[in-house]
């Protein structure tokens, strides 16, 4: 029977609850956002006792559905003040699903102390763990796996989360124990830290055995879905060969690679930090160009990048290579991997941290292009010095502290690796997403740049609102299933894609869902999230990009972002 674990940090009691009827058909982001809307007062302080951290595996997680082991982590974001769902890979989602756990709700706040929640097939226990306070995530994960179970999935925070820094993320580990799979965005690590919860250790020796009603039917659908993924050139060949950082060159060639804190759209040394280069170096040093974040992923977009000093950063993703690379005018992959590693260990979101360093460079606190200065500054975070705390507080705060006007954020969250002036569909998503600036919320790069799911000219306004709307709805639904969003590249191009996902859901849950129901689910999730944000005080005035995108042209296309009032049409459904 599936259940909900309710962990009260004020009393340090854990309750095991039955799943209410209303939540049975929900999972992943669908469930985290619904629980937050139902239980968290929208006006609460994100770091106070009334906020909750909600963790949920997706609907298909823990089955043999390919690439379905994604985990949703939700709460009210201390970075944006909005509702938040951050989505991570790693091995915990499958384990939770195999333990029959639909969600973990962490609420309240202890007067003091550090705790670890240990979840096994027959026991749930909150264990005092003051000895683990202050530990980096890599060591922490290793210690906990040694202490409790060598194959455990560990959801944890680093010192940044304990210090309640606004861009602290929640880490998960891959099969090898690297704590590098982040539910990174929006500061949910600080929420976990505010509750004194250092880690959740999840133990299950099962990976693919979550209950499925019609096993034969499910198996056939899962196989068909794997074929769809493997036959598509992107998910079957492109992503496995070079990982997500294969984007570096194409986004640069498209003139929409934010460079020098969003000053231009091209970086003349982009190739040096691209996926092609990364694969070459990784393989030469004994790492891997292809790797999975969880068992059963057929897309395998990750990589293993060994640093010259012997530490390993796995993976280096495109967004991170951009945020510490072109964004800071740094063209040394080793510097980028080092910054990535420090973020993983101290527990910070790499996109936000890169945006913040960009703002600090803009302010003259650090020189653009100076990798060693960036590393030195980032090392301040773990020490909790004033500079370290400014870096951990994100780009918006850093901009205010130093009086910078060129601050690339929406609703307080840093803008990722596609400039909204030359990839306008993504600009619409950044402006209107319920999450603050988030590329994954409606990844219009597909049709704007990659010619996946059609083509919409990236530098023009036409069609962008509709493109972003459709993608935001579809993404919300995918995020509820536990499927990796990267399945979308194949699904968008194959009419069999979505029906096959629906077929897997129906076979697993004995439901009669149609494709239309899945679209309705996506819409409902967005409506729930909007409702929370409205109650939290957000209005359409918040659904806009920063002023400089409307006023300054971006080379080489010399375009500005022109959409304003039209943005309000995104939620016309």
């Amino acid at each position, binding site marked *: 029977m599936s259940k909900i674990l309710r962990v009260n940090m004020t009393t340090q009691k854990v309750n095991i609850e039955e799943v209410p009827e209303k939540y049975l058909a929900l999972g992943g982001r669908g469930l985290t956002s619904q629980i937050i809307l139902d239980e968290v007062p929208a006006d609460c302080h994100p770091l106070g006792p009334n906020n909750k951290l909600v963790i949920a595996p997706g609907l298909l997680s823990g089955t043999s559905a390919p690439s379905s082991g994604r985990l949703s982590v939700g709460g009210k974001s201390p970075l944006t003040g909005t509702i938040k769902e951050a989505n991570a890979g790693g091995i915990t989602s499958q384990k939770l699903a195999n333990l029959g756990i639909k969600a973990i709700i962490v609420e309240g706040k202890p007067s003091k102390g550090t705790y670890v929640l240990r979840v096994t097939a027959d026991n749930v226990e909150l264990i005092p763990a003051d000895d683990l306070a202050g530990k980096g995530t890599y060591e922490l994960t290793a210690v906990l796996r040694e202490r409790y179970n060598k194959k455990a999935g560990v959801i944890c925070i680093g010192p940044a989360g304990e210090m309640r820094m606004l861009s602290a993320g929640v880490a998960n580990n891959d099969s090898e124990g690297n704590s590098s799979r982040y539910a990174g965005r929006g500061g949910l690590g600080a929420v976990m830290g505010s509750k004194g919860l250092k880690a959740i250790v999840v133990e299950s020796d099962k990976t693919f055995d979550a209950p499925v009603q019609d096993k034969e039917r499910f198996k056939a659908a899962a196989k068909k879905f794997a074929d769809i993924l493997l036959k598509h050139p992107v998910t079957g060949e492109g992503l496995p060969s070079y990982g997500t950082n294969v984007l570096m060159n194409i986004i640069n060639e498209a003139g929409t690679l934010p460079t020098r804190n969003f000053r231009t759209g091209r970086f003349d040394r982009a190739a040096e930090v691209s996926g*092609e280069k990364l694969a070459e170096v990784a393989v030469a040093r004994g790492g891997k160009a292809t790797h999975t974040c969880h068992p059963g992923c057929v897309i395998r977009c990750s990589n293993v990048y060994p640093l010259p000093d012997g530490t390993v950063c796995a993976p280096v993703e495109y967004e991170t290579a951009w945020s510490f690379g072109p964004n800071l005018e740094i063209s040394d992959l080793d510097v980028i991997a080092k910054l990535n590693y420090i973020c993983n260990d101290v527990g910070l979101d790499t996109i936000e941290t890169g945006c913040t360093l960009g703002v600090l460079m803009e302010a003259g606190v650090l020189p653009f292009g100076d990798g060693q200065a960036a590393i030195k500054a980032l090392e301040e975070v773990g020490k909790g010095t004033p500079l370290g705390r400014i870096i951990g507080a994100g780009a918006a705060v850093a901009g205010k502290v130093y009086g910078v006007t060129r601050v690339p954020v929406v609703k307080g969250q840093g803008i990722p690796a596609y400039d909204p002036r030359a990839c306008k569909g993504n600009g619409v998503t950044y402006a209107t997403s319920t999450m603050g600036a988030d590329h994954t919320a409606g990844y219009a790069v597909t049709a704007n740049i990659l010619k996946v799911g059609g083509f919409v000219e990236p530098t023009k306004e036409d069609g962008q609102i509709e493109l972003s709307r459709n993608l935001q709805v579809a993404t919300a639904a995918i995020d509820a299933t536990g499927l990796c969003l990267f399945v979308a590249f194949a699904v968008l191009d194959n009419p069999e894609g979505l029906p096959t996902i629906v077929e897997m859901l129906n076979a697993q849950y004995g439901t009669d869902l149609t494709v239309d129901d899945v679209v309705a689910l996506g819409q409902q999730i967005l409506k729930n999230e909007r409702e929370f944000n409205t109650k939290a005080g957000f209005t359409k005035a918040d659904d806009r990009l920063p002023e400089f995108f409307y006023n300054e042209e971006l080379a080489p296309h010399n375009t500005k972002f022109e959409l304003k009032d039209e943005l309000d049409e995104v939620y016309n459904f």
Partner: protein
Amino acid sequence: MAMQVELRVFATLRKYLPDHPLDRGVVVTVEPGTTVGQLITKAGVPLEKVKIVMVNNRHADLDQQLVDGDRVAVFPPVAGG
């Protein structure tokens, strides 16, 4: 008058131009009227492997005619996020 254009190929297409340095394009001399598709074929890259072509930072069709000094970037299907 022959023209010169700069050609870059990326990702899995790099195997067709193994000597192509990643950080610089190769300069190719072509006759006026040459199309993007003809350039790619001449360089030895099979057209059926090509998904996206950009000329001077804009998406281009295979039948677009090249102009002296064009920067041409050729990609197989790629994605990420």
